[in-house]
């Protein structure tokens, strides 16, 4: 009896969350730019509600697969990480530009290493971060159980920053609490 109640509770939570996200998305993308100059009209907004409802009932199981833990804290830690990541994107482009115009050497190598990350979100974030930071591109996550990554590095320096310094692993681990 309690199990079914829990399930119902979870289902309700998923539906409400998906609907909110879909409706806000609809408002941002279409409602304001098109309808803002005119007086408020419920029939127009109701179309958005209708579409959001249809999408919600089709996709809520995929959109919110399970109820996460400490979502607010993780989000709070994720925002500074995005700022740091943007700075890394700038550094990455400068690094590649130097190699393109012949200031730095190109000595590629393929490296493999384990991390402490396990959850899907953490693995995806880390894989994308590797690709965006200077001199390294993710090839594959060969063993998600052990957090094993195969990475192509364009020179020795960038490879060392992943295997020796491990700054980014620590940052992602801190964000997703999987140190």
């Amino acid at each position, binding site marked *: 009896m309690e199990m079914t109640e829990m399930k119902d509770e979870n289902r309700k939570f998923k539906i409400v969350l998906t609907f909110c996200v879909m409706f806000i998305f609809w408002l941002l993308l279409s409602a304001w730019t098109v309808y803002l100059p005119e007086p408020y009209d419920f029939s127009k907004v109701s179309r958005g509600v209708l579409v959001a409802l249809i999408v919600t009932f089709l996709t809520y199981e995929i959109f919110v697969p399970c109820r996460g833990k400490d979502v607010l804290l993780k989000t709070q830690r994720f925002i500074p990480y995005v700022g740091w990541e943007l700075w890394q*994107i700038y550094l990455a482009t400068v690094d*590649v530009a130097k190699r393109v115009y012949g200031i730095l050497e190109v000595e*590629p190598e393929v490296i493999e290493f384990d991390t402490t990350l396990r959850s899907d979100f953490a693995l995806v974030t880390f894989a994308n971060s590797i690709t965006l930071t200077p001199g390294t591109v993710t090839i594959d996550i060969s063993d998600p159980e052990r957090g094993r990554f195969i990475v192509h590095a364009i020179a020795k320096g960038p490879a060392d920053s992943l295997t020796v310094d491990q700054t980014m692993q620590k940052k992602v681990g801190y964000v997703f609490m999987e140190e």
Partner: protein
Amino acid sequence: MLAIDIISTMFLAAGTFIMITGTVGLLKFPDFYTRIHATGKCDTLGQIMIIVGCMIYEGFTFITIKLLLVTAFYLLAGPASTHALMKAAYVTGVPVWKKGDKRM
């Protein structure tokens, strides 16, 4: 108005320059993996620069939010597509260039 024009043009020019750098890298680098390095990285920042230029030119409207969303999706999709190409090459056994090898 003139200041806005100048700033947005600077952003657009920087973005274009970065994109061109990526293209030069694509032509110059020795093997498949390093070429993906050049395009994958330069495209991200080039795209951000060009979109920021557009945002400044347009001023703050709801189009700005759409442009921000485009940037956010690009930050997710760009690395994912790079990764898909790399994995496909690695799995099918495209050789990795080492220093001193012939250009591929």
